[in-house]
C-alpha cells in the first residue's frame, strides 16, 4: 500500500522536475539578454541535481548522491565564472 504511494509520488516528482528543466531550457533559448540565459543555466543545473537525487531515491542507490554533489559544485563554478565574465569581460584578471 505504502509502496504504491511511494512509487507514484516519486514518479510525479520526476515529472515535475523534468517540466522545470523544460521551462529553464525555454528561458535559456528565449533570452532576451545574456543575464537571463545565465540565470536559466543555473536553474537548469539545480533542476538536474534534483532529478538525479530523486532518481537515486527511486532506485534505492545512494551512489547518485555523489553525482548530485558534483553537479552542484560545477553549477556554482560555472555560474560564478559567467557572472564574472558579464561583469568584467574576462574571467580571470
Amino acid at each position, binding site marked *: 500500500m505504502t509502496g504504491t504511494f511511494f512509487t507514484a509520488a516519486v514518479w510525479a516528482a520526476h515529472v515535475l522536475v523534468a517540466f522545470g528543466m523544460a521551462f529553464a531550457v525555454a528561458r535559456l533559448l528565449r533570452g532576451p539578454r545574456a*543575464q537571463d540565459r545565465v540565470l536559466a543555466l543555473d*536553474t537548469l543545473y539545480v533542476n538536474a541535481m534534483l532529478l538525479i537525487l530523486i532518481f537515486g531515491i527511486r532506485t*534505492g542507490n545512494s551512489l547518485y548522491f555523489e553525482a548530485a554533489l558534483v553537479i552542484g559544485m560545477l553549477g556554482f563554478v560555472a555560474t560564478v565564472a559567467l557572472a564574472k565574465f*558579464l561583469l568584467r569581460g574576462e574571467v580571470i584578471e
Partner: protein
Amino acid sequence: MSTAAAILVLAGALLAFLGSLGLLRLKTFYERVHPPTMATTLGIGLVLIGSMLYFSSLESRPVVHEILIGVFMTLTTPVTYMLLLRAAVHRDQTEGRDPLQQDPKGRPQPEAAPGRQPR
C-alpha cells in the same frame, strides 16, 4: 517512514517546478531572479530531508551525508545570485538605462545608444 519521505520529495519537486515556471513567466530580469531561489533553498532542502529519511529507513542506520549538499547550496546560492545581479546592474548602467525602469520585453529603450547592444 517512506510515505513521509515521498511527501517531502513531492513537495520539493513542486517547489522546483514552480520556481522554473516563475523564471519562464515573469516579465523583467529583476523579477525573474527571485523564483529560482525557491528551488535552490527550500526545494532542495525538502528533497534532501526526504532522501535522508528514506535511506535511513532503507539501511536501518542514520544516513546524513545529504547534509553536505544542503550546506553547500546554502553557502553558494547567495554568492552566485549577488554576483549575477551586480553584473546585470552594471550592464544596464553602462548602457545608460535605468535598471528599475526596464520595459517588460527587455528591449533597449529608444534613447539608449543604438550602436552597441551587447546581448
